[in-house]
Every structure is written in structure tokens, then in C-alpha cells.
């Protein structure tokens, strides 16, 4: 029974990776414009994130220190500022988009404009962080996030041609509209492989008290969690391919994304879409804020934990308070949540090298990981992801300018 509880951390993190506003937006845009042909990018993102999470989880379980701790300890303060700055800027954009996602869902549910919802949503998130323990945040998000299964139900009800889906899961080159194809590919990868995810996972492993005994749980959690999240993202792509593509609808508002579930499942689909958007984005909000506060606190050596009363970790508590309230501002002043999301995804993709490359050094350090350093498979995957991250860095800005929506 205990093991299933541990899987919650993997599920929560993967929800943050695959079912939050970025993935919903990018997967459905991809499905609407290219049918199943970009599904392989989701597979690539899922596998990459799975490997990265397993590694930062193993790092925490064996060394009893988080990835952020080790970034400061092993590379010094001067280097640490680089990933810190990159993660702060990029994750802040994503955080603003997540608040935007919740706000849009509430607008669709109540008719009250999204910009009015930003600050109340941020305050509710803050209140949960203030009073809730890590377990509550983690398991609450994982359980409520199960509502996202509606995407699988919707996709199945649309009766996709599975051979065609299978072909989409294999890498393919675009025939036309090449710039747009690769732009969406970059966005999907930015939505899937976000640094705050493996930073959060690493800190979460310490919050949950993982030790060397948990290495197996870590693998299962990272694997199953991502299978769950990635699978549902593929379902949202399939649904978009079958509902939006035939109507040649190019997504530029969240209301259009709602059609993806409203079409196969009617009113219930629409309601569950709103619930999914609301819950998964809210969960991601909490996750990103915590990831940022963790990274600051661990890098500077402050007291930190979601299980401590705020009075015991004042700087940590102040950090998440300030961040969540600041992140509500862009949406509160009326910036388009979908545009915010698209920019945040590409920025994330471009920022990956500074958090992926140092991991390669740490995962091969026997002082930190004892006999649990990377084997050839993990190292191979990490080198591939590192090279991928450099390609994304180079391609991101040109593609955004050429084909950004």
C-alpha cells in the first residue's frame, strides 16, 4: 500500500509535465494542424522527462541532497547563478501561464473575465502552500488530477484509426509547412521537459524521506508517472486531430480546445474539460512555485520544507508568497493566456542546456552516488537529451520568429 502512495510523487510531477496548460495547448495545436504526425515528439518528450526524473530522484535518494543543493555544492556559487537565473525567468513565465489556465477555465465556467480570476487563484494557491503539508499538495494534486483521464475517454470515443496513430508515434519529416511543424515540435518538448519538473521531483524525494531503499520505487514512479501523463497528452493530440483538424480549426483560443472533448462527450465532456484544465493547471501552479522556492532555498542554504510551519523557514515561505502573487500580475492585467503559454514553452525549450549538462557530471560522480552512478543506458539517454537541448536552444528563437502562433 505504501508503494502506491509513493507513486503519487511521480504522478503529480508528470501531471505537471504533461497535463498542464502547456501540454494541453501544444498537443491540441499539434493535433489540429498536423493530425497524428507530431505524436512521436510527445513520445520523445515523455521518455526524456522520465530519464531526467529518475536521475534527479536517484540523486536525492542516494546523496540525501537535492539537485539544486548539488548544483551549488559541486559547481560553486558563480556557476549556480546561471541555472538559477534561467529557471527563475523561464519558470516564472510558465507559472503565469498556469494561473492563466485556471483563470480561463473559470471564465468559461462562470462568464466572469479571466483577468479577474488571476489574483483569487494565486491567493488560494498561496493559502494551500501556507497551511498544507507536502503530502497534501502531492497526493491531492495526484488524486484530483485523475480527472484528466477524460482525455483518454474522449479519444477512444472518437474511434481513431490505430494504425495511423501508430505511424504518428514514429518520427517523420513534414511535407509542407515545415517551419510550423518544427516550431510545434520545439513547443511540445518545452512543455514536456521543463526544468522545474525534475527540480521539484528531486526536492519531493527529500520531502518524502526517500533513501537508497527507494531506488526501485523511484524507477517505477518516474516511469509510470510519465507513462500516465504522456499517454493522456497523446490522447489529447488524437482528440484534436479528429475534432479540430477536419474542420481546419487552428487553435488560438482555449474555447476551441474545449471542443476537443465537447464534441465526443457532449456537455459532460465540456464540464470535465474545464475541471481538468482547472485542476491540472492549479496543481502545476503549486508545483512550479514550490520548485522555484526550493531552488532558491537550497542554493542559498536556507531552512526549507513544505512540512515546516512558515515561521521556521521564513525566507522560503516569503519566496513562494512573493512569486505566486507576482505571477498573477501578467494575467491580471489581461495578457492573452494562450500567447503567454506559447512563449513560455519555447523559452523553456531554449533554457534546457544549463540544467541538463551539469546533471551529466553529477550522475557519474561516485562520491555522490556511491555505486549508483549512471550505467550506459542512462548516460546514453542523458547525452542524447543534452545534445537535443542544445539543438532546441539554437532553433527556438528562429522558429518562434518564423512560425510562432
Amino acid at each position, binding site marked *: 500500500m505504501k508503494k502506491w502512495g509513493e507513486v503519487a510523487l511521480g504522478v503529480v510531477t508528470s501531471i505537471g509535465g504533461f497535463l498542464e496548460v502547456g501540454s494541453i495547448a501544444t498537443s491540441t495545436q499539434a493535433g489540429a494542424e498536423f493530425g497524428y504526425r507530431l505524436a512521436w515528439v510527445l513520445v520523445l518528450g515523455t521518455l526524456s522527462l522520465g530519464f531526467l526524473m529518475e536521475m534527479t530522484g536517484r540523486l536525492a535518494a542516494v546523496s540525501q541532497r537535492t539537485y539544486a543543493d548539488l548544483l551549488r555544492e559541486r559547481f560553486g556559487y558563480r*556557476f549556480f547563478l546561471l541555472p538559477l537565473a534561467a529557471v527563475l525567468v523561464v519558470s516564472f513565465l510558465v507559472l503565469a501561464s498556469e494561473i492563466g489556465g485556471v483563470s480561463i477555465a473559470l471564465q468559461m465556467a462562470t462568464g466572469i473575465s479571466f483577468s479577474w480570476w488571476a489574483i483569487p487563484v494565486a491567493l488560494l494557491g498561496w493559502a494551500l502552500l501556507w497551511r498544507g503539508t507536502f503530502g497534501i499538495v502531492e497526493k491531492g494534486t495526484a488524486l484530483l488530477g485523475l480527472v484528466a483521464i477524460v482525455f483518454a475517454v474522449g479519444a477512444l470515443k472518437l474511434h481513431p484509426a490505430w494504425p495511423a496513430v501508430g505511424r504518428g508515434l514514429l518520427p517523420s519529416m513534414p511535407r509542407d509547412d515545415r517551419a510550423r511543424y518544427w516550431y510545434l515540435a520545439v513547443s511540445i518538448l518545452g512543455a514536456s521537459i521543463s526544468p522545474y519538473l525534475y527540480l521539484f521531483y528531486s526536492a519531493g524525494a527529500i520531502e518524502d524521506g526517500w533513501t537508497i531503499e527507494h531506488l526501485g520505487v523511484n524507477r517505477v514512479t518516474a516511469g509510470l508517472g510519465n507513462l500516465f501523463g504522456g499517454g493522456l497528452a497523446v490522447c489529447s493530440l488524437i482528440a484534436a486531430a479528429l475534432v479540430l483538424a477536419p474542420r481546419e480549426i487552428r487553435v488560438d483560443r482555449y474555447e476551441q480546445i474545449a471542443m476537443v472533448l465537447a464534441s465526443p462527450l457532449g456537455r459532460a465532456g465540456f464540464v470535465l474539460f474545464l475541471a481538468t484544465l482547472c485542476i491540472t493547471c492549479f496543481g502545476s501552479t503549486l508545483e512550479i512555485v514550490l520548485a522555484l522556492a526550493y531552488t532558491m532555498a537550497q542554493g542559498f542554504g536556507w531552512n526549507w520544507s513544505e512540512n515546516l510551519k512558515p515561521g521556521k523557514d521564513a525566507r522560503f515561505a516569503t519566496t513562494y508568497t512573493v512569486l505566486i502573487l507576482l505571477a498573477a500580475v501578467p494575467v491580471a492585467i489581461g495578457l492573452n493566456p494562450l500567447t503567454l503559454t506559447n512563449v513560455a514553452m519555447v523559452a523553456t525549450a531554449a533554457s534546457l542546456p544549463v540544467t541538463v549538462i551539469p546533471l551529466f557530471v553529477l550522475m557519474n560522480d561516485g562520491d555522490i552516488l556511491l555505486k549508483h552512478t549512471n550505467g550506459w543506458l542512462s548516460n546514453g539517454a542523458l547525452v542524447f537529451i543534452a545534445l537535443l537541448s542544445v539543438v532546441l536552444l539554437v532553433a527556438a528563437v528562429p522558429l518562434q520568429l518564423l512560425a510562432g502562433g
Partner: protein
Amino acid sequence: MSARTIALDQLVGRVVRDADGRRIGRIEELEAELVLESHGNDYVVTRFGVGRFGILDTIASGRIVQQLVRRLVRATSYVRYEIPWEWMDLSDVAHPRVTRRERELAQAP
């Protein structure tokens, strides 16, 4: 007796030259040991670890680049000297000098 106080990070990364003025690498590490003194216990530096990366030496001044390079470029040109404190002349902290020639220095295994 001139006593000076310097910060550790003013030493780490500095280029070290031997008695002939030849560049032998950069300071990577300072190893300290506990010594029993009359006025209490003190940690004193016993050895300097100086590492050289061959042609990559010019870019390998940051800790992360050093560690990355060491992982990738395994054995070939990386050499590390263990230099006892008595052989290190720190009268000019920005330009540390070893009071022996390079060939007399002990290499780390």
C-alpha cells in the same frame, strides 16, 4: 612576520608556475589537516592539488568545465600534482609559484 588573510576563492583556479617559470596547471584543491597546537586545534593546509588539462587548460578555469572535461576526456592529458605547502610560494597570491622544478613534483595516481 607578515600575516595576510586571503579568501580561498582567490587561490582556487590560479595558474601555478614552477621554479623555471613554466606553467604547470591551476590550483584545484587545498587539502587541510587538523594539527594540535598549544593554543588549540587548527586546520592547516598541508597540500595543494594542481591540475593541468593540456591544450584544454585555457578554457578549463571554471569548476564545471573542469569537471565536465575530466569526465569526457578521461585519462590522456590530465595531470594532477600534489604539492606540499612548503614548496608553494604565495608571496604574490595572484601568481603562485612552486619552488621546485616540474619534474620533481609528485603526481597523484
